């Protein structure tokens, strides 16, 4: 039992976790710069991507946007207003209790411009990210195996 819980951490775990966070920071920094170059805040970009990434037939409400972006409902409503003001979304208020956000052609175009560079960047970081994830997964498995013996 001595190796269970917080006692079973090795230097490798800390190193892998630190590397994982570094890669994620690098990716987010890249993404922020790419969005800002096209005049979008990172949060506006993520809102547009969240809407675009819905399965066909899916509808994005303001409250769902809040959940997907991990922001308070009031911030999501404010974000929706600013996206509408800039012509990136149309807020469909047919169902008054549940306004739906739809992308405009302008939003589709800006996402088409932003996404290829993101896919390229992900391909670059994926091996390192997956390695860190596997080290962290395997380590837990090894810990359990050691405990079971």
């Amino acid at each position: 039992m001595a190796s269970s819980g917080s006692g079973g951490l090795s230097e490798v775990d800390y190193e892998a976790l630190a590397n994982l966070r570094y890669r994620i920071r690098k990716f987010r920094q890249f993404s922020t710069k790419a969005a800002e170059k096209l005049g979008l805040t990172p949060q506006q970009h993520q809102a547009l991507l969240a809407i675009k990434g819905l399965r066909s037939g899916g509808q994005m409400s303001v409250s769902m946007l809040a959940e997907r972006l991990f922001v308070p409902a009031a911030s999501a409503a404010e974000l929706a207003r600013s996206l509408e003001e800039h012509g990136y979304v149309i807020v469909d208020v047919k169902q008054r209790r549940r306004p739906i956000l739809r992308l405009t052609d302008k939003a589709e175009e800006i996402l088409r411009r932003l996404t290829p560079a993101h896919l390229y960047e992900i391909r670059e970081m994926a091996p390192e990210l997956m390695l860190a994830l596997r080290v962290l997964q395997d380590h837990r498995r090894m810990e359990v195996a050691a405990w079971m013996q």
Partner: protein
Amino acid sequence: MKTPRTGLTDADYEALSNLRYTLRRFMDFSTSAAQEEGLPTQQHQALLAIKGHRGEDAMTIGMLAERLLIAPHSATELVGRLVSAGYVSRRADPNDKRRQTLELTDKAEGVLKRLTAIHLTEIREMAPQLIHILKRLQDEIEP
């Protein structure tokens, strides 16, 4: 040389959107976990970067700035706060007196041990999905 497809599919957007959602969920979890230990997320990341640092040379403020992707003066301020809170101690580098190296205190080791254990649990939950999405986005480009 494989050339990427020029057309983006709905599946690409869906995978990219899911990737970002998964990363945000992890960050949100991490921020809350650090806050429960009384650490702002940046301080937690600084301690983790020092602890996870491998290499012959000890961590310096300049290296910390690079790892956290922040300006050197911000790293200096951050280290000042960590020193005041008793998480980090500064030592003059014996090889270069102008440089200071950073070391974790026992207090920092204790907090990191607790935080890292729960992060590993969270990562074990998210890893299969994250690896699946990453593979998918890679395969798309290299069929």
